């Protein structure tokens, strides 16, 4: 419960951060953002880096902008919203723009952790740590987010699924790469439903849903779950059951298929909820998430 020794550097800019990471490449350097996943890991002995690079004071990494690249301040003309990696949950909740254009993120952030943690934790940190019951990974998958990173080899863009290892593989984030922003395409619908773990406050089960609706018919659906497996996962059976159906008819039958693709034996289990129970809960929470998504649209 006390962190081990490490060296601490406060980065003044992204370049500075990348520079320090590079210089300390052999010291298992770690980026420190809000610290609300990393510090618990340090205290528990789950991480023991020799160097921490605090990016917390890099102003360019903070903020929510519409259609604008946060870092370079240029319009990339995609209509996407850019969320700086260091944007806190409290910042997310204050953004009317996000609530209108990416309500799934707002909805998930509302029930994320608690008031104090929402003042400190960051969107970039949340997606990078991608803890098993974290809320934003599911929301990012449903929102079809892309993650923008910079590293020794320059800039690149990673699709949320790959970044989060949503198919069970390792995250695509490379060593010494820094997340700069998260971009989400505009979507007026979106909802998140969470069964909060009574002890940890993370999701026992959380489902995020974004729908694209074309005159009463579901043109596209992205539904993702967290808490059930070690990583967030798309609920493809639900998505398939929704597309092409009428909005008012499809939800219940589609949601029933939520657990189909997950083997309870693979699911997370603890004293409060077994894998079997978590998989069982998926349908209920998928239905709730879908209903919330439509409410927002209406």
């Amino acid at each position: 419960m006390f962190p081990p020794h490490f060296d601490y550097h406060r980065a003044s800019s992204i370049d500075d951060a990348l520079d320090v990471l590079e210089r300390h490449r052999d010291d298992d350097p770690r980026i420190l953002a809000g610290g609300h996943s990393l510090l618990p890991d340090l205290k528990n002995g789950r991480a023991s880096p020799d160097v921490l690079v605090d990016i917390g004071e890099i102003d360019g990494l903070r903020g929510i902008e519409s259609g604008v690249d946060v870092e370079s301040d240029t319009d990339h003309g995609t209509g996407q919203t850019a969320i700086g990696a260091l944007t806190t949950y409290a910042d997310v909740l204050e953004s009317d723009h996000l609530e209108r254009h990416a309500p799934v993120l707002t909805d998930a952030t509302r029930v994320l952790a608690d008031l104090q943690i929402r003042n400190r934790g960051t969107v970039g940190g949340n997606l990078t740590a991608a803890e098993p019951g974290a809320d934003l990974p599911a929301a990012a998958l449903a929102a079809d987010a892309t993650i923008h990173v910079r590293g020794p080899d320059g800039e690149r863009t990673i699709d949320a699924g790959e970044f989060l290892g949503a198919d069970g593989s390792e995250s695509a984030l490379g060593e010494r790469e820094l997340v700069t922003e998260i971009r989400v395409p505009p979507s007026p619908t979106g909802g998140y439903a969470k069964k909060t773990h009574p002890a940890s406050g993370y999701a026992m089960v959380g489902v995020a849903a974004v729908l694209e609706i074309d005159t009463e018919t579901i043109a596209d659906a992205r539904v993702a779950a967290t808490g059930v497996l070690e990583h967030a996962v798309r609920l493809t059976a639900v998505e398939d059951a929704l597309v092409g159906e009428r909005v008012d008819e499809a939800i219940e039958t589609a949601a029933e298929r939520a657990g189909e693709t997950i083997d309870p034996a693979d699911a997370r289990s603890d004293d409060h909820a077994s894998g079997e129970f978590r998989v069982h809960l998926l349908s209920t929470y998928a239905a709730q998430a879908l209903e919330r998504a439509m409410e927002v649209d209406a």
Partner: protein
Amino acid sequence: MTGPRKGENESEDEAGGIAGPARREDEALLTGRAEYTDDLRDPDAAHLAFVRSEYGHAEIEGIDATAAAELEGVLGVYTWDDVAASESPGVLPSSTGSLDCEVPAHPVLARDRVRYQGQPIAAVVAENRYRARDAVDAVAVDYDPLEAVVDSVEATAEGAPTLFDGAPDNVAATTDQGDREATEDAFDDPENVVDIELENNRLISSALEPRAALAEYDAAEDRFTVTMTSQSPHGHRQKLAHTLGLSERQIRVISPSVGGGFGHKGHHHPGEAMAAWCARDLERPVKWTATRSENYLEGAHGRDHRTTAELAIDDDGAIRGLRVETHANVGGYGLDGGASMPGWYGGLLSSQYRIPAIHCETHAVFTNTAPVHSYRGAGRPEAIYVTERLVDVAARELGIDPVEFRRRNLIEPDQFPYETPVGASYDSGDYERGLEEALELADYDDLRARGRDRDDGRLRGVGVACYTESTGGGFESGVVRVHRDGGVTVSAGTHSHGQGHETTYANLVADVLEIPTDDIDVMEGDSDSIPTGTGTFGSRSTIVGGSAIVESAEAVLAKARRFAADRLEVEPDAVAYGDGEFSVRDGAESGSGSSADTVSFADVAGMAYGWGVPEDMDPGLEETTFYEPDGTAYTFGTHVAVVAIDPETGELELERYVAVDDCGERLEPTIVEGQVHGGVAQGIGQAVSERASYDGDGTLLTNSLDSYAVPRASHLPEIETGQTVTPSPRNPLGVKGIGEAGTIAAPPAVVNAVVDALAHLGVRHVDMPLTDEAIWRAIRDSK
């Protein structure tokens, strides 16, 4: 009982209704000025930390502390060998005398075997707490893991691993309460017997302040001062003396502000003992503060009973007998009285009912888990839970409303004092009135009439639990010391850790002495300056400590009256007293013209310490009372829980919670209410979310707040309270304790409500905690 008071608490009407500070202790607590043990700064203090067993059961093959000892800033690394070579016995007290076996007591550091995960193996002292943790990590322990057993029933089965050679079946003690033969007779008609098998889940008290101690050793005086977070300073002095091999006079225990206790801070653990031991060895103050996880690993935990019970009923629905067998898990060692506690737990099995015959057989069983000891309620919640569950099941099986079944069997008001077959002597009560009051507050008839289903698809249930609670055992000391200027210092051997004694005691004394509470200081928590006392637990402080203080205050007033009589030149019974002033009673013969008309309390104090006190009087105005009540006071009441369950997900909502308690006279109604709220919250925690659980190897799975679910504000319902008042005839204040009522009543009330909601599906019982999954499974398995 309580008259109007003077002083600070009268701010009620000032400034249009600001409720004045509810308690005297609040301001210091609210501003951060109050000091808890870890807040104390001693620049010289070194920090103690423990290397703890990773295994639930293992032989220790070797300990390599070289690397740790070499770390800069490390002052000492100690193992059992160091303790054994010292003048201290180094084992914690244990009530093994009352057990059926000869087993070693808990050593402060493991000898050669560890019997629960988290048992201390080595102690490390370093310049600061971070360094101490580094050193802990640097100690290498070589274990030879042994097969473990964590369940109290499995531990008594053939072939189970054993913890101690002296207890080959792992049974520490088997105890009988009640009359076995009479009870067997009551069960002669097997037709009307209802049974149940249930578990009372293992809990962790989870006081928010972790255990902590700051120990100093004065070599010249060969004397220790141990400042520690304790709810029983004198109790800890006694226990430390045992562990360190000292006389009690060589130890001063100071207990500053205490951040919650719930039983746990009355127990003695290796931390404070080793802090003292190391302070002597290093000739430096040594501070120890447990982490949250250490608190969880080390225990003492609470509850953990597995019980089978049967109720015999006659055709009219009258209870004839109750038969109970319990396996109580006492953990890896008998910690103090922890292992003998199960032997008396059955004392409340009669609850509020006339049960002609009761028999309870209890096996206290060692397992590879943290030691178990008293936790808020301590045996009483376990007993009431058995009876209140069984009564509910019986009513349902007889087709009688659970409330009606209870009514038929309640002890009547004219039956007090009532002797139960398990040795309890109930002092006073009006059980039916409490029950009816609770039903009315809860709108029971309406709830019943509305039935189980509502249009939101959720299932409703109502649960009722009646209870009794034994409160106020043992003696307590109470001192009222009047100073020369009339100021008063009150002290008692109890120790407040949230109960607001400063307020209660000051008000009690202000009532007797009729002086402003501002003139009264209350002192607790210093074994040197307060006569030996017992402590604050078992809902005893107001009853026993309060009575001791009041008795002292009355003696002080009587003596003051005699001084006043001398000054007023009348006989003492001609002296009237009011509002801090003595005068000659109306119509009484007054003395010679030269005497004063009145004399103030402060003047009398001056006289008591002046030159030449009146003839036939001793100087001084101070009284000490050691008080023991005439018998136990039995609090009682009825709680009602209303639940809604989502049958799809098992999600439970506590829609309402009603608590009607009768704790006799309520001296400080606000504080009493607060005690009810806190107890109910902990009882609901037990019912719905808390369980300390181990895997089969003895690894504690719930070793932090990440996994052990302490209720948060959003998990709890509004707690609605009501009261009846039936004074206790067994103490002068007419009070009964209230600290534990909620932890006793809430678990059966909530479980009864959930089972009520699910009964139509064939669900007869669900074990606590009633997690969503537990409820979901009960529904699914019933289908």
